[in-house]
């Protein structure tokens, strides 16, 4: 498994060759929470993969052939099949590869995970808005909205009476929502979970998971990335390398 700490490919770079047999390739970016979902699933299922990082502030022209939307993550296999949209990549990996199933077999339990995923859906853009906030008034409003969304998740854990969102062991839905919770500390939003004790406990339990802890980003590096990213610097994606 290689490439996680490799410099990103940018405009003018040569397109990569075909994916070798027995490997799956993920086009990623070291600080992208959406791509982190896919990396978590690859790790959790022990799937042999290679990572190509993309400079999202200076995208290679060939990357639009991989995903017309030009976004990461994208999966490419040795048959040249391309899969994009982070949630779709995660579900594809779970279906295609053997080993521990991250999505439940039971249709209702699977539907429940997808309904929780919908409940979570406003969080990523709220967190991004918070990152881009201009002043302290924005800050309070955004925090309030975030509290509201996080309370919905707290309610799920309260009703289910389990540690994780899919039951007493970690499963797909936990990995899908985790990356933004990792950002909370760096963005100084930890107080948003002060009123959601079960969510706080869940966060601690998540950090114990081998896949999660293997892919934890150093807060200093994340902060460095944010600074450069907000300035639209083409160096942002390679911060710390």
């Amino acid at each position: 498994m290689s490439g996680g700490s490799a410099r990103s490919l940018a405009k003018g770079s040569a397109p990569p060759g075909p994916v070798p047999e027995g490997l799956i390739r993920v086009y990623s970016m070291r600080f992208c929470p959406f791509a982190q979902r896919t990396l978590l699933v690859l790790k959790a299922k022990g799937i042999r993969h290679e990572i190509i990082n993309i400079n999202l502030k200076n995208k290679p022209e060939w990357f639009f052939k991989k995903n017309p939307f030009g976004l990461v993550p994208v999966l490419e296999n040795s048959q040249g099949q391309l899969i994009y949209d982070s949630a779709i990549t995660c579900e594809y990996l779970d279906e295609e590869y053997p080993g521990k199933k991250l999505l439940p077999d039971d249709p209702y339990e699977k539907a429940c995970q997808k309904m929780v995923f919908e409940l979570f859906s406003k969080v990523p853009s709220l967190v991004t808005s918070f990152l881009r906030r201009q002043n302290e008034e924005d800050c309070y409003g955004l925090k309030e909205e975030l509290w509201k969304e996080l309370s919905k998740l707290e309610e799920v854990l309260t009703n289910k009476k389990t540690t994780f969102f899919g039951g007493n062991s970690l499963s797909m839905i936990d990995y899908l929502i985790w990356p933004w919770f990792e950002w909370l500390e760096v963005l100084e939003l930890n107080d948003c979970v002060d009123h959601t004790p079960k969510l706080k406990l869940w966060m601690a339990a998540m950090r114990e998971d081998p896949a999660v802890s293997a892919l934890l980003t150093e807060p200093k590096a994340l902060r460095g990335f944010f600074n450069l990213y907000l300035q639209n610097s083409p160096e942002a994606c390679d911060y710390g390398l």
Partner: protein
Amino acid sequence: MRFCPYAHRTRLVLRAKGIRHEVININLRNKPEWYYTKHPFGQIPVLENSKCQLIYESVIACEYLDDAYPGRKLYPYDPYERARQKMLLELFCKILGYQNTIFFGGDCISMIDYLFWPWFERLDVYGIADCLNHTPALRLWTAAMKQDPTVCALLIDKNIFLGFLNLYFQNNPDAFDYGLTC
């Protein structure tokens, strides 16, 4: 609700798979108070089974039905083909979401509106009525399009079009000339 395209999805899957079901229509402008115990925001469609399990969001409900019930599988078995279908759905939702002005290109009709229109005009002819709540933007767009002189001038007559379709599906070569008087 009989005219909601999202609920329509679920009814299509129920029918395609031959699943025995009952339908309770909800008045979306005047919702019963009890309906909020089925869906926190009172949206449709919602599935409820005999175990009192509730499933909502049209796409989630449709996948649940495909997983839970035997018979013909609507999603393909191959993981890549399944992923492809989901990627196509994302594209479709993006189209619906790209609208934040009356027309797809802005406040005036432009190329993209003409490029989309023929398919929507046919849907209109088939008689799929608008949903009151979910796609007001699309309903406004259809109405606005019908006021465009170009679109108006080329509107297909519903009966002639249905006549054509009828003959076409019978592989009748006269289909293409249906409605011409000489």
